[in-house]
């Protein structure tokens, strides 16, 4: 089963604002750096706005001609697969004309499914496997979950899962450090409510560690439902419960909270996540799917974080576990 683990790299870290990662040569350079680091697959990021050339299907069409031409361009640069697309409905969208949709609100469900369909359609066209979604808004916006809102969210993601499955894709729920969903028991409940054929869990090693989880234990508990991974390290744990702060994206993640944490996320091997133990568990339990490495919110230059992750993968993870390269 080990051979079925496939490695990819997230593109999310390259786009810091609307002026960055907007020119095609920037995208070409980023993908060359990715390929040079030994990653021949990428996870795309569902974007919004005319300045995100690979974030939306209409922009792909304008800039590359078609999804098929985009695949050819990727291959020319050494990127032979698209693993997945990350989609967060709570982020405003110019095209869908909203300032953030809530999976916990039944009234938003159809719009979330419609928006997800656009990104899932492009993902299917470029040969991807997994639609990775943010299942809940941040705690500071949503508050603690109750059964009603949990059920609403599950219904939303079941609808998205069925839509994605019709395109040959799986849907993976990616819980982050600020999520309204906080506990493993809540996660258990969510997964019980979700269709196990189409909807599973994405484990983001850093986000869940920051939120106070032991990711190895979490994986062992939910491994039958885990169908995607994001690998990045966590340099600190939110011990003060600062996910509750108003505008926690800024107050906690960007500004570092009361402790002024300089960086929450780090390159693999630099922080609190026990990647060798996690990979051993994944091998033991027969994980077959993507590992998407991320340099999310890493320091400049971005290439450095990617190169350090590439070294760790090759010299620590693959050497320790004899994992196949692809």
């Amino acid at each position, binding site marked *: 089963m080990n051979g079925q683990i496939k490695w990819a790299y997230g593109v999310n870290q390259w786009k810091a604002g609307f002026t960055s990662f907007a020119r095609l040569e920037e995208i070409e350079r980023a993908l060359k750096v990715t390929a*040079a*680091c030994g990653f021949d697959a990428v996870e795309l990021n569902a974007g919004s706005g005319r300045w995100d050339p690979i974030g939306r299907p209409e922009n792909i069409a304008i800039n590359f001609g078609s999804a098929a031409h985009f695949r050819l361009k990727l291959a020319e640069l050494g990127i032979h697969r698209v693993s997945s697309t990350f989609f967060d409905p709570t982020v405003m969208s110019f095209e869908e004309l909203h300032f953030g949709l809530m999976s916990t609100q039944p009234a938003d469900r159809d719009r979330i499914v419609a928006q997800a369909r656009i990104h899932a359609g492009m993902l299917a066209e470029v040969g991807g496997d997994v639609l990775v979604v943010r299942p809940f808004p941040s705690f500071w916006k949503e508050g603690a979950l109750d059964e009603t809102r949990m059920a609403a969210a599950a219904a939303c993601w079941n609808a998205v899962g069925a839509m994605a499955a019709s395109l040959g894709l799986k849907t993976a729920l990616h819980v982050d450090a600020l999520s309204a969903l906080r506990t493993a028991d809540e996660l258990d409940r969510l997964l019980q409510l979700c269709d196990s054929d189409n909807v599973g869990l994405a484990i983001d090693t850093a986000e869940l560690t920051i939120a106070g989880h032991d990711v190895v234990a979490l994986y062992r508990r939910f491994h039958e439902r885990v169908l995607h991974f994001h690998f990045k390290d966590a340099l600190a744990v939110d011990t003060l419960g600062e996910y509750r702060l108003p505008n926690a994206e800024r107050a906690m993640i960007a500004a570092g909270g009361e402790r002024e944490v300089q960086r929450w996320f780090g390159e693999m091997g630099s922080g609190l996540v026990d990647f060798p133990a996690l990979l051993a568990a994944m091998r033991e339990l027969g994980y077959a799917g993507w590992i998407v490495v991320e340099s999310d919110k890493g320091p400049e230059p971005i*290439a450095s974080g*990617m190169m350090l992750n590439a070294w760790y993968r090759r010299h620590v993870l693959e050497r320790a576990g004899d994992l196949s390269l692809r």
Partner: protein
Amino acid sequence: MTTPKLRWAYMDHWRIDTPQGQLSQYTSVKRFDAFLKQISALGFEAIETFDFHLGPLRELFGSLENARAFMQERGIDRVLSLFHAVMYDERQSAPHVRATHDHIFNYAQHIMRSSAGLGVQNFIVMPAGLYYDVEPVTDDKLRACAELWNRVGKMTLDHGVKTCCHHEFFCGIRSAEQLRKFYEWTDPRYVFLCLDTAQHVIAGVDPVDLYLELHERCAAFHMKDTKHVDLVGDYRRKPDAEVMATTTPRWFHEMGTPGGLVDFPALMAAMKECGFEGWVGVEHDKADVGGGNYPESTALAAWYIQHVLKKIYA
């Protein structure tokens, strides 16, 4: 799987962005560790550096043997080359001035004696002073340079190290004619060429032609690109032709840069044709000029090696 004919080394000009501004990676073990891992991740197996880094390496690791063991644990086999950082001055260090030869020789010998343990194979020098210090470039001055490097090259070989001459575009030996004479008047047993692709292009010399002509003398490479030929005499600009030139604020770019003038595929074909086997160095000094950064330039050069050059010769 066949053994690769070429192994790739990285000539180290990096600076790292830190909370204290740009710093060298030789300022701490942690920074040096991160540097090694990054270039190792891209497939480089050796570094090249300056001889003034011998002291910091010894201080950081206790000995050069320890430094090399640390490098090898991260996938970097050796310090392939030391670039001899000479402050050219007619009072003590000017290859065209014979009275300074003993000083240069003794300094080079000191470097040889104090660099054991790193696996150094090449000693890279600019074989003449700055052009404006040397001009007019006469045959006698070229012969004086040749005499010096014959002497130094014989000495370094006793340490198992080849002396390789690296012709910056502002060096006193830069034109095709000057290069021809210099290599004719140096002993092929002792003096070798370090082919710096961009420097030759800037100076109006075709590096592929030069390689074909001197391939038996060529023991080292600095592969980098440029978008400019010096057409206005920037090579004579005082005090520093490289950083004060009017032609461009940035002379050097990584291989594969759009608009680059070096024909790397032709050079690789020539290396294959001539049966070159061994280390090839990649360099891009001043990669950060104008907002670039060293890691990205290095990764882009590695991409070019992996996706273009290895298909021609590996």
